[in-house]
């Protein structure tokens, strides 16, 4: 990059090369300094804060290399001696520069790889939040209330020297730690679980209820995907046939399940059910006894299932289903049974189209007929002509028939009519008569079970309805259990339980309790709804042995379906419930409870402190817990104190790297595996090591280069590596926090909305996140032809074909964009609120992106006139500005870069004309005549000078990784990083791997080494 004088100290260091043998001696250089420099740079007159005369006897180059770098730079640039002073002759120039270059090079070589002064780093606010996120699995963002971190070293907040600790800061750490702890539930089994909401102090009942709730919900969530849903064919018949095969052919259940596509747990449950006699239940016996009574195998057809068995199973299935309402699960007889109380009337409805008679079946529920009298209080029939009371029809029909029979001569069907009259009279006479002689209304039909009462129907009858009550005045009512049913096809067996029919009783009687108990057993075995099946699984919570439910999982069965992780979770949750559901634990249980909590707390501390705990540390953690218990804190609160204590400890807040205790040998100290793991994870993730990295630290394998490299590559692909985009790139390229505050004149640019600002921030984050995680080329930052846009931002940029809120990669070269310089966030950030600033944009490129330094503007700089808001006049004003020599030194280098970006307005929109219609001139011309136009031209120009950018990138990356400023002794590493990038097509990981493998990264200075260097 010949046109640029080498301002940047280190860049010059890295790129320059001088032969050591030819280096002039200090005495020759000192002569030059004396003649040309001391006049202004002496102990009394320290122009620019520089005193060179103090070095007359000894240049102290090691200690004061920064001064000498400055000397070298200013002289090479021609900035010194100043124009009005005596200039150096060529030999003088050569003597001084030769000496300083030689010495600096030698210094760099001699100390190459020096880990450098890295001050112990406190977690930055960002690191604090990321670390808490990884410890708790929640993004609480408490650090936003902390004092903001500054920037140091290479301009990053992760530099130890500028990470302060103060009472106010510690106070905030206390506050945050208390908040974190308040979000935790701490239980013996599941341990420390952080919740999205604050939990706070919990009473015994709350703890128990939450343990219960958690387990209940877990059971249901885990079982749900595997249980039959409402409306599913539950293949009851198939299961029963499979059980039959198992019984008669001894085929293993596993094989049967496989062959028939049945679920093994359900088959196991079915098999247990049909073979069991306990618990007793007459209602369940309808299924299991019927199954046991299925025919035996046909001896002539071994191994075959007789059709009778299949049909029998189907019948049982129908019986089972009859208790439910197939159209609306949960609304069948099974559900209403619990409310049957004999007080209310119960309805019967039946379709009787084309039927001559209906059967009113009054059953005794199969348990004898004592007390079983039904009162049919209403009976309606509907014909095609309309509805009527059955009794009315009966009377009218009898009337008609009597009249018809009475005519002379008798009609041809007189005999039939008489028969019918007799039949109707029979029915009519039954009304108003009570079997036990009690007086009842004449319209009421009282029937003692078991009885099937035939009801002749009118012609064209379509529908029949009856209302019945249990006769509660019956002296035997305490034994009454009755069923009633209207049938149109054939009567039912009223001496047995009528499946699918409600049983009615008087509440609070022994008969009711017994029958309901029986019924419950069946209901539990075959719940009528999906939700009930879920509840059955969740009821394992209270069960000591598996339930009798068929479509259900015991803990063991669930465990077989789920993996070991879920099995452990189940065990842990059961442990929670076990210890918290009982108010009074015995001393042994209490001890176990405490022990379990302490175990979790130790584990948490080991993670938070990023290393194993010493025995003494464990004892102290325990002691704090017991101290809290003594002060009558409940267990959870006492445990929370320990959490707070862990999170305000220097072991958590600082990433301490220790030295060997006694007699540290001179030289570097190798980081131990845990320290290295932390360095690595905070470099790549800005957060703590994860489990895998911790494992590699625990077994020490991380110290092997190949393991370190593998971990690095793995971590770069992890979403957590987005932190590199946000923290490293964001701080280096200064877009971090762009979304927090607008710098734009909102009155002039109302279209620059908060949403747009957030989108622009997101664009930069996405770009760098992909660069890191997809391992793209670092040269894409400047030269990429793509960016990441959503619909809103694409529209703003004028990029077609992007729809929806999602950000995705888009080729944008056609729209004058691509890479960093086409990003709205950067273009806006480097503008004034109401106009563009070629100076700011140029300076950004020059200093931030390319890494050159420009001195601050001299005092009393004349301000650009207001009219300069117009780009054309702005250019003119700036050109005038540069006529001044004091200004031109820097602005000749800066402004042209910014001019090339004039095609973007202050909020980053592409433009060809200014607000008043003036044509935009986006050419930049350097002093040496190099010209470029627009973003494309600028990019081509920068492409030619890519090493400058790469140098800057490497320097920043290294500074970020190490948390310090780069030094001459980093020269070799920086060169190596650049070479590695070149060899690997610029892949981001190449530079990272180089850093991670470096002596600087793997070591820290030991005490004697530091003493020598300071």
């Amino acid at each position, binding site marked *: 990059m010949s046109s640029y004088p080498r301002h940047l100290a280190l860049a010059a260091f890295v790129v320059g090369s001088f032969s050591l043998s030819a280096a002039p001696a200090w005495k020759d250089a000192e002569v030059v300094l004396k003649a040309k420099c001391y006049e202004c740079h002496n102990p009394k007159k320290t122009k620019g804060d520089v005193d060179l005369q103090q070095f007359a006897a000894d240049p102290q180059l090691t200690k004061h290399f920064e001064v000498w770098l400055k000397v070298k730079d200013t002289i090479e640039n021609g900035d010194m001696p100043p124009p009005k002073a005596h200039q150096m002759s060529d030999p003088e120039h050569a003597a001084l520069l030769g000496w300083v270059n030689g010495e600096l090079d030698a210094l760099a070589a001699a100390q190459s790889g020096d880990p450098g002064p890295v001050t112990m780093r406190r977690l930055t606010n960002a690191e604090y939040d990321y670390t808490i996120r990884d410890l708790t699995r929640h993004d609480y963002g408490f650090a936003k209330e902390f004092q903001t971190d500054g920037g140091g070293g290479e301009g990053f907040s992760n530099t130890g020297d500028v990470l302060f600790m103060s009472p106010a800061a510690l106070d905030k750490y206390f506050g945050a730690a208390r908040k974190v702890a308040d979000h935790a539930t701490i239980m013996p089994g599941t341990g420390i679980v952080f919740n999205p909401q604050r939990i706070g102090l919990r009473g015994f009942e709350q703890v128990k209820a939450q343990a219960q709730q958690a387990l209940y919900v877990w059971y249901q969530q885990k079982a749900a995907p595997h249980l039959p849903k409402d409306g599913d064919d539950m293949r009851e018949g198939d299961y029963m046939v499979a059980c039959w095969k198992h019984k008669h052919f001894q085929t293993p259940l596993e094989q049967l399940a496989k062959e028939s596509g049945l679920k093994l747990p359900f088959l196991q449950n079915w098999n247990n059910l049909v073979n069991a006699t306990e618990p007793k239940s007459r209602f369940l016996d309808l299924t299991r006894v019927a199954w046991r009574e299925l025919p035996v195998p046909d001896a002539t057809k071994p191994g075959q299932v007789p059709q009778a068995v299949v049909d029998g199973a189907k019948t049982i299935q129908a019986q089972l289903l009859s208790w439910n309402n197939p159209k609306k699960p949960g609304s069948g007889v099974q559900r209403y049974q619990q409310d049957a109380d004999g007080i209310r009337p119960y309805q019967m409805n039946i379709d009787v189209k084309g039927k001559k008679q209906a059967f009113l079946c009054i059953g005794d529920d199969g348990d004898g007929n004592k007390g079983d009298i039904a009162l049919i209080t209403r009976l309606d029939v509907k014909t095609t002509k309309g509805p009527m009371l059955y009794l009315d029809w009966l009377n009218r029909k009898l009337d008609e028939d009597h009249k018809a029979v009475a005519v002379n001569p008798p009609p041809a069907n007189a005999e039939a009519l008489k028969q019918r009259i007799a039949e109707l009279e029979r029915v009519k006479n039954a009304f108003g008569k009570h079997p036990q002689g009690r007086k009842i209304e004449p319209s009421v039909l009282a029937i003692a079970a078991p009885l099937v009462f035939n009801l002749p129907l009118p012609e064209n009858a379509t529908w029949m309805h009856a209302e019945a009550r249990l006769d509660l005045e019956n002296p035997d009512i305490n034994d009454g259990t009755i069923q009633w049913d209207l049938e149109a096809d054939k009567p039912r067996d009223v001496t047995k339980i009528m499946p699918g029919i409600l049983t009615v009783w008087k509440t609070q009687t022994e008969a009711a309790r017994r029958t309901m108990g029986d019924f419950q057993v069946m209901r539990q075995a075959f719940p009528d709804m999906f939700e009930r099946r879920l509840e059955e699984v969740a009821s394992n919570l209270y069960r000591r042995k598996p339930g009798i439910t068929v479509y259900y999982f015991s803990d063991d069965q669930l465990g077989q379906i789920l993996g070991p992780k879920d099995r452990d979770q189940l065990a842990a949750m059961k442990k929670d419930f076990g210890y918290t559901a009982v108010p009074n634990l015995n001393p042994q249980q209490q001890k176990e409870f405490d022990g379990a909590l302490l175990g979790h707390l130790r584990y948490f501390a080991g993670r938070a402190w990023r290393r194993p705990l010493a025995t003494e540390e464990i004892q102290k953690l325990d002691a704090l817990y017991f101290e809290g218990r003594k002060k009558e804190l409940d267990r959870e609160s006492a445990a929370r104190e320990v959490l707070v204590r862990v999170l305000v400890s220097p072991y958590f807040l600082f990433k301490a790297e220790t030295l060997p205790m006694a007699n540290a040998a001179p030289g570097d100290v190798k980081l131990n595996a845990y320290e290295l793991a932390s360095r690595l994870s905070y470099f790549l993730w800005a957060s703590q090591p994860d489990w895998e990295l911790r494992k590699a630290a625990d077994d020490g394998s991380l110290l092997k280069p190949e393991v370190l490299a593998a971990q690095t590559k793995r971590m770069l692909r992890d979403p957590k590596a987005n932190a590199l985009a946000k923290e490293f790139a964001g701080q280096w390229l200064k877009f971090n926090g762009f979304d927090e505050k607008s710098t734009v004149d909102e009155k002039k640019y109302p279209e620059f909305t908060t949403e747009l600002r957030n989108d622009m921030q997101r664009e930069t984050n996405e770009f760098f996140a992909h660069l890191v995680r997809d391992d793209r080329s670092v040269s894409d930052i400047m030269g990429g032809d793509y960016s990441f846009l959503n619909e809103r931002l694409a529209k703003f940029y004028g990029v077609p074909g992007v729809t929806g809120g999602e950000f995705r990669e888009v080729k944008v070269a056609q729209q004058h964009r691509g890479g960093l310089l086409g990003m709205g966030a950067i273009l806006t950030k480097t503008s004034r*609120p109401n106009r563009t600033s070629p100076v700011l944009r140029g300076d950004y490129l020059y200093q931030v992106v390319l890494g050159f330094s420009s001195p601050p503007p001299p005092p009393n700089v004349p301000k650009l006139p207001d009219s300069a808001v117009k780009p054309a006049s702005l250019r003119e004003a700036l050109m005038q500005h540069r006529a001044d020599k004091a200004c031109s030194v820097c602005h000749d280098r800066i402004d042209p870069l910014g001019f090339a970006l004039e095609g973007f307005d202050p909020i980053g929109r592409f433009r060809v004309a200014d607000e008043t219609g003036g044509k935009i001139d986006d050419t930049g011309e350097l002093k040496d005549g190099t010209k470029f136009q627009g973003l494309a031209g600028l990019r081509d120009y920068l492409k030619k000078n890519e090493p400058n950018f790469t140098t800057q990138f490497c320097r920043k990356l290294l500074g970020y990784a190490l948390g310090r400023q780069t030094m001459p002794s980093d020269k070799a590493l920086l060169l190596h990083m650049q070479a590695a990038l070149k060899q690997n097509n610029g892949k981001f990981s190449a530079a990272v791997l180089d850093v991670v493998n470096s002596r600087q990264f793997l070591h820290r200075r030991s005490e004697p080494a530091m003493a020598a260097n300071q």
Partner: protein
Amino acid sequence: MNLSRRKFLRGTGVALGLPWFESISSFGAEAVKNNTAPRRLAVCFTGNGVNPHHWGATQGPAGMEFMKSLSPLEPLKKHVSVFKGLWNPTTVEGEGGHYPKMNVLCGLKVKKTTTDVEVGTTMDQLISAQTGKFTPMPSVVLGTERPSYSTDSGFTSIYSAYISWSTPTTPAPKEIFPQQAFDQLFDDGSKRKRDKSILDLVLDDAGALKPKLSQRDKQKLDEYLTSVREIEQRVELAEKISQAETKGAGWQPTVKVPTMQRPGAGIPTSAEDHLRIMFDIMLLAFQMDRTRVATFMMNNDLSNMRFPSLDGISGGIHELSHHANDEHRLDMYQRVNQHQVKLWGEFLGKMQATNEGERTLLENSMIMLTSSLFDGNAHDSRQLPVVLAGGGGGTIQGGRLHDHSADPNRKLCRLHIALMDRMGLHVGHFGDAENALVI
């Protein structure tokens, strides 16, 4: 540049910072016997200088006359002193238009560095080490804007975000969230009790860690150790104060419980709202005697804070300060200055309306308004804008112009010494000054 003396002075700051730990045991007795209202000190700061043509006051036939930017203070004139010509001589050496000037409250040179920052312990922090013995919080350090992450021309931009430094190398952390500031000041201290045993333990942690660290890291850990100890002291102090309060002896603040709502979370959207609520918090802190020392950065240096409520003003403060002698820009700059003075004046008015018995709260206080530059356009720090309101407990007669333009020794630190004296901290010298200004 006299290195040894500078070092000595910086060292003084550290030494002075410590005694309150040692003298803490004497606290109870002192608080009880004092029957008059205490003095309070606040320094309010605005970055980027002032419009030089309209700032200050002149001497008229009937006494001091405010220039335009100070006109909102007219109703409080007899409580206001205007200082002309004071400066920090160290700020005009070396390069840099902004950062080297950020030593308003200590006068010592700002170290040019991007890492190991160093200025000097500031006068407010020295005072608070003394007066903090009597109040739950030693001082309150408020602001409205965060520091920015960057290094610029060899300086870290941290410098532009702090006027208070608790040690020469540690800025006193500034609170910009109203709710946090409120909670810190008005918490009753009860939750602190449980912190005690934790503090002992983490102190052990630090003690165990320290021998394993390098010298450099040990210094960093010392920041932590000091912080832990100070919080421990505060816990004890909170208990003692609550005991003293219940005894009811001695002077008692007129306001006993917060008279304002706990502010909502986050930062108010408008700059005015943010400034007013922070002023109110500072006011309440003084009214309730939760602290006697405050600093408030109404904005950072180099800030581009904007006041959209003012019509016809485009651009942030820093931008406006570079007015280039353009009349329109100068006018906008002036109007922003005046607006800031108006907000400051509202705060003073509320202090004046707070009766503390013999005197009002304002009369018991010393409230300074200053900047690190005079004319922002020229980065001119050859004099600084300094306005002082309040009577210092009957020790300062207001309504006067103090013109030190022609004074050969016009160091701002001399004023600081005078204020420190009134706050009960008697130092022979401070910063770059050897004696107090007579006011």
